[in-house]
């Protein structure tokens, strides 16, 4: 009898130890090379930092988090293959990609597998296709672009606007919404310029902007191209105020564009310069670990992991099938989960609501000019 009890106790202990040791597996597919390398590297580093912190404090429900990183090469075709491979390993949640085009082609795979996908894409259409497994880490363009258009119209008093955008899903999505909103508000779009990802020479585009002589220029390109066009705008002496959304005034752009970035303004859902204590602490931890100041993608990756933590703790169990249902309609308060940095609410489409910021580049630094409150 004694020996049976002993064996039983041992088996129970082994099972418990095994359950404790069993890690929660996350899969990340990000732009670690190619045109989106800045995006993907920041995103990955944010994820790694959050996981390190959470594991150091005992993990989620007593289980450690583990992540595998795969490189989409900033190519939607490669992203799809990498996501398929990642899903074959049956992760708890899929993280990434950051490019909207890559999210668009990978979201159906995650939905089919019934796995929640927490991504960095901002194209408006992503969460409008009825996919119940897709979640944002930042504003979609349908939330941010109306704020941008309103600022251009109300604050910049621009009657005419030139819109420059990158010819991919991200750029086209933003361009469509902002033009519609500008039109609704009564600002006329006098130049509508498409550019290519990886484009080096912006002389012709800036020449067209100069010829159109707008009251304001809205720039919606990826980071490196944003830096190049800022340099060219300065070189050709364009004096119209420059407005962007997140990418235009990112840290990497400021580093690459130098003086040419000064004066550029933008709406940002996330910035490490936000006057929020938890965000400042994040910036300090990230900079200490990686020796550089992250852009908004670092924040997105970090928040993605804390979304996983908060949702799982809300459920009280690790259940990949119920994860998406739980996250829909969930409000995560920074007071309860400091890793989420700011109070955030997720709606039924996977879109989020939280406060945002209007920033300007002043002497090579982002300066927050206004804090815009949560919509609801």
């Amino acid at each position, binding site marked *: 009898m004694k020996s049976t009890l002993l064996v039983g106790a041992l088996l129970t202990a082994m099972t418990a130890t095994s359950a404790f040791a069993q890690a929660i597996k996350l899969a990340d597919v990000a732009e*670690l*090379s*190619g*045109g989106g*390398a*800045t995006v*993907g*590297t920041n995103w990955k580093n944010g994820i790694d930092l959050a996981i390190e912190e959470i594991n150091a404090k005992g993990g989620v429900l007593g289980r450690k988090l583990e992540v595998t990183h795969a490189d989409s090469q900033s190519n939607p075709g490669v992203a799809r293959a990498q996501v398929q491979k990642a899903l074959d390993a049956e992760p708890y949640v899929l993280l990434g990609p950051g490019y909207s085009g890559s999210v668009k082609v990978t979201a159906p795979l995650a939905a089919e597998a019934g796995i929640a996908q927490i991504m960095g894409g901002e194209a408006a259409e992503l969460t409008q296709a009825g996919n119940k497994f897709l979640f944002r880490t930042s504003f979609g363009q349908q939330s941010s672009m109306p704020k941008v258009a309103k600022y251009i119209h109300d604050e910049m008093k621009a009657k005419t606007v030139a819109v420059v955008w990158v*010819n991919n899903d991200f750029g086209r999505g933003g361009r469509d919404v902002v033009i519609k909103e500008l039109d609704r508000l009564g600002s006329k779009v006098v130049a509508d*310029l*498409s*550019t*290519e990802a*990886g484009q*080096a*020479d912006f*002389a*012709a*585009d800036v*020449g*067209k902007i*100069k*010829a159109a002589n707008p009251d304001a220029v809205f720039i919606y390109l990826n980071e*490196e191209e944003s*830096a*190049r066009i800022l340099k060219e705008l300065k*070189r*050709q*002496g364009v004096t119209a105020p420059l407005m962007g959304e997140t990418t235009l005034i990112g840290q*990497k752009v400021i*580093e*690459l564009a*130098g003086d040419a970035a000064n004066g550029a303004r933008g709406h940002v859902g996330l910035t490490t310069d936000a006057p929020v204590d938890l965000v400042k602490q994040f910036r300090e931890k990230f900079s200490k670990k990686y020796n550089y100041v992250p852009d908004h993608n670092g924040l997105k990756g970090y928040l993605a992991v804390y979304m996983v933590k908060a949702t799982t703790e809300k459920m009280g169990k690790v259940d990949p099938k119920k994860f998406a249902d739980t996250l829909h309609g969930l409000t995560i308060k920074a007071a309860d989960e400091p890793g989420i940095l700011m109070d955030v609410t997720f709606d039924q489409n996977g879109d989020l609501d939280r406060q945002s910021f209007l920033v300007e580049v002043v002497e090579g630094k982002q300066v927050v000019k206004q804090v815009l409150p949560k919509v609801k």
Partner: protein
Amino acid sequence: MSNLFDLLVAGLATGAIYALVAVGFTLLWQTSQTINFAQGEFVMLPAFLMLAAMHAGAPFWLAIILGILLSMILLGLAFKLLLVDPMMRHGVLPLAIATMALAIGIKEAVKQFFSAEASPFPSIVPTGDISILGHAVSLQSIGVLVVAILAVFGLSTLLNRTSLGHQMQAAAQNPTVARIIGVPVERMILLTFVINAFLVALASLLITPIYLAKFSSGEVLGQAAFIAAIVGGFNQVRGAIAGGLLIGVLDNLAAAYVSTQYRAAVPMIFLIAVILFRPQGLLGRAEERTV
């Protein structure tokens, strides 16, 4: 049309870079009848060698000298002796494939040892503008154009006006006869590779402040220069120069006057037209094939 002048200058400056890189294609084609598909990466690497020297504490001018010297050793001598010579024995196709592998190797190595992110790179030319005919023209564009023209002029002088250049041309045109008349063919071919390495290092120095130092920047550049070399004439240095300038200008004019959305397609359409109607390129000479 008021900005036509600006567009031409900017296009010529970009085109001059394509020309420098395209010349490398033609030099190697003439001497070894091969296409170096790593030519774009050859332009990307010197910038990182210079950045590495600067990170190690070298001033910019010293980093430039070290970068150019290292490029001549790695991308000229080592490339010829360690890759081209051994692979050449197996034919032109295996060699071309080996250069593709080399391109991937260089790209991945730079990504691994430096960063996947772009880095700023100092310019040897001041960043201001000067006024020409009432137009503000970037000093950087003028600098790129002038240095590229000087480099190409120097190369033409070397090839056409010096004994060394004549020997190089003889070695390229008919190695057997050149050997009979006492030309050290192997040494001349090696010299061609070193000159190519010097040109790509120069191109790297000129273009990186504009394109930014990034492991993948050779892809776009290599492709543009390859198109330029075909358009101009793969077997003529002057063809490569003309092709480079033409593609640079065409790209800018297409963006301004045709469509920014389809600017990337215009050089490709031009390339197809050239291949269809003048396969040897605009300034190239038709090569006879012995059956």
